[in-house]
């Protein structure tokens, strides 16, 4: 813009200078031509007077040789010429100035002279005798005069041009400077030029709009990031080239990645397990895909969906879920179903067989009580099993509807001991209860169930002559019940699993029981918020500790 303004100013200046120069030259030329012509006329008149008085002698004597002088007779014959031999010159009767002088007394002309070989100004004057005196002056003398006069003018014009050059630069810069000074990022209220104010206003409003939009986008992005960051599911967005476009930290955690994803990094750098790769490939080929990724200690499900844009796959969204717990639960449930069917079937088969034998009359009357006893025992076991399952499923569903109340653990333990006294005597196990009366909050039914199952196990898995010691104590953290036996103990690898349903360390079922006892303990304790810990040494016995929460007054 500066350049353009500069150039425009300069062009205008130049045009003005050139045209004024031409004008001056034209005016000067006209002026000098007039003056030369007047000079010529004056000198001709002067010479003419001389010639009138002295005749040709005047011309031949001391006449200055400044200009050409020709004396022409009335018939056109050249009488004298100071530059040429008159004899050599032709008749001059046809010369314009000559004829004019003859007719009017004086004449002038400007034309090409063959004698002087240049454009010449002539002035002719008729003398009293009818002859004509003519003087001539070369026209270039006018130009010399003009040139002499024009020199200072030209210098002045050159100076003016230089000044114009400098001024144009200054002016152009000054014009543009305020425009440059406008802060486009934040244009001020007042516009420098009135003509610019709509433009500046527009920029201002657009700036504001852009700022609003940027803020909006940033906010939305932050919201999105906050939401995705707080998701426990891993979220990954990838483009066609498998580059990660967006991700949350859960995804990194679930895929076991170290450190953040670098810009443009491939999602396959995070995980390249076969299933994961298949998911990425399939989704980028435009198909939904779901895979289960199993590693030694955890289990993740990947859901991949293609992102379509105008009919083409633009990328994919991958969701990674931690399904370790779910898979474990599913496995437990499957195992439970299988176990329940098996456990229910065993006594039923026995009952069925015995009943069949009785029905066919193949039993001696003396043996009938024995067989009936069999049926009775198996049926009892069946009922015990079903009862245990019902208890468990009640606990699963959120516990029985019984009310919470303050329970005296010592009294409960005493009741349990009374129930188990017969069984303990049969196994020759000594049962001891120590401690004090300690209150705890809980559902009496469940507390009793827990204590009963622990003691029942302690008796059932004991050596003859062994002992079961239960201690009820009050600790700062709350009531604590310890059940210590001198039984067979629980192997280290089974310690986690004994609380599972139907899990038995001894697979032969020789010790009786339903296999649900400790499972009921675990679920009951969880329902009451009681902590259960297990210590055990093979062959020496096990210790179960129940830590009840503190009773708040």
């Amino acid at each position, binding site marked *: 813009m500066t350049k353009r303004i500069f150039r425009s100013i300069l062009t205008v200046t130049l045009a003005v200078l050139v045209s004024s120069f031409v004008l001056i030259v034209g005016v000067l030329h006209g002026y000098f031509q007039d003056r030369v012509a007047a000079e010529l006329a004056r000198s001709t008149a002067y010479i003419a007077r001389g010639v009138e008085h002295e005749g040709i002698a005047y011309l031949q004597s001391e006449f200055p040789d400044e200009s050409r002088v020709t004396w022409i007779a009335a018939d056109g014959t050249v009488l004298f010429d100071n530059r040429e031999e008159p004899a050599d010159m032709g008749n001059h009767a046809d010369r314009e100035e000559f004829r004019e002088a003859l007719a009017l007394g004086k004449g002038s002309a400007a034309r090409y002279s063959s004698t002087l070989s240049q454009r010449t100004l002539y002035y002719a004057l008729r003398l009293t005798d009818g002859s004509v005196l003519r003087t001539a002056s070369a026209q270039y003398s006018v130009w010399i005069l003009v040139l002499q006069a024009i020199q200072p003018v030209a210098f002045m014009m050159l100076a003016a041009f230089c000044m114009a050059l400098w001024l144009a630069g200054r002016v152009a810069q000054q014009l543009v400077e305020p425009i440059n000074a406008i802060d486009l990022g934040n244009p001020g209220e007042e516009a420098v030029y009135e003509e610019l104010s709509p433009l500046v206003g527009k920029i201002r409003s657009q700036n504001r709009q852009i700022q609003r939009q940027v803020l909006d986008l940033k906010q939305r992005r932050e919201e999105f990031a906050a939401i995705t960051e707080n998701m426990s599911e891993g979220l990954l967005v990838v483009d066609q080239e498998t580059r990660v476009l967006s991700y949350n930290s859960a995804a990194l955690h679930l895929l076991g990645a170290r450190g953040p994803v670098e810009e443009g990094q*491939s999602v396959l*750098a995070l995980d390249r397990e076969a299933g994961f790769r298949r998911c990425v490939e399939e989704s980028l080929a435009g198909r939904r895909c779901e895979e289960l990724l199993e590693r030694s200690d955890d289990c993740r499900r990947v859901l991949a969906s293609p992102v379509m844009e105008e009919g083409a796959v633009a990328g994919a969204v991958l969701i990674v879920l931690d399904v370790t717990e779910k898979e474990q639960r599913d496995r437990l449930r499957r195992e439970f179903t299988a176990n329940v069917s098996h456990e229910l079937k065993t006594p039923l088969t026995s009952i069925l067989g015995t009943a069949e034998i009785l029905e066919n009359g193949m039993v001696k009357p003396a043996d009938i009580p024995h067989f009936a006893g069999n049926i009775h025992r198996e049926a009892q076991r069946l009922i015990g099993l079903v009862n245990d399952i019902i208890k468990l499923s009640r606990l699963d569903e959120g516990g029985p509807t019984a009310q919470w109340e303050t329970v005296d653990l010592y009294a409960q333990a005493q009741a349990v001991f009374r129930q188990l006294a017969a069984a303990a005597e049969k196994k020759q196990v000594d049962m001891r209860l120590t401690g004090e009366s300690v209150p705890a909050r809980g559902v009496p039914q469940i507390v009793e169930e827990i204590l009963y199952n622990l003691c029942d196990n302690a008796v059932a898995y004991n050596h003859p002559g062994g002992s079961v010691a239960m201690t009820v104590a009050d600790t700062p953290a709350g009531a604590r019940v310890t059940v210590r036996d001198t039984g067979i103990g629980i192997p280290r690898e089974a310690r986690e699993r004994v609380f599972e349903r139907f899990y038995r360390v001894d697979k032969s079922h020789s010790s009786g029981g339903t296999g649900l006892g400790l499972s009921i303990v675990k679920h009951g304790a969880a329902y009451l918020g009681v902590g259960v810990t297990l210590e055990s040494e093979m062959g020496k016995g096990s210790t179960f500790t129940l830590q009840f929460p503190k009773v708040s007054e």
Partner: protein
Amino acid sequence: MRNTFNEQLERLHVELIQMGATCEDAISAAAEALLKNDEALSRAAEEAERELDRQEREVENLCLKLLLQQQPVARDLREISAALKMISDLERIGDQAADIAELTRFVRLPDGQGALHIADMARAVIGMVTDSVDSFVRHDLELARAVCAADDRVDELFDKVKRELVALIAADAASGEQGLELMMVAKYLERIGDHATNVAEWVEYSITGIHPSNN
């Protein structure tokens, strides 16, 4: 121009990751086939080997295209030349995994101690292959060096397996053929370990510009 180059370089990286992953699949399928005597797994290993051949050609093409069309320098050049070397090692690992898979059809691991150490060896080798690919994926120099160090352990195990097989054959001449086949498996595993070391060395070269064998 640069952008295309970077895109192609990224694609190379992704293809190499995929190739490394296929390689891991091949070796772990072969080892599983060996330990569990599973026909389907040995077929999977052979399938993976064919896939590796295809991937090798693809990566090779990409590398040559990059070299010819983009004329990379410095780090990029190192990465591409290292990739060219790495793929042949990865492909060899795939071949050997397929060889092991083929042998598993005739081999039954004895329950004695020989079997124990072959299994250890297989696990160690799988770990090496995984780590070497990991070191490439993460540009992890430490891990690459750890892979090179782990090769000594595999060599040690190889010697142990060799002695065990000698003892096995000496104790029971009838099991000679089995012993020889197992020896082959052990040798293949040992070679895979070497190739994994090579891969790790090229990773080190592409990061530092100095190949460890020059030290």
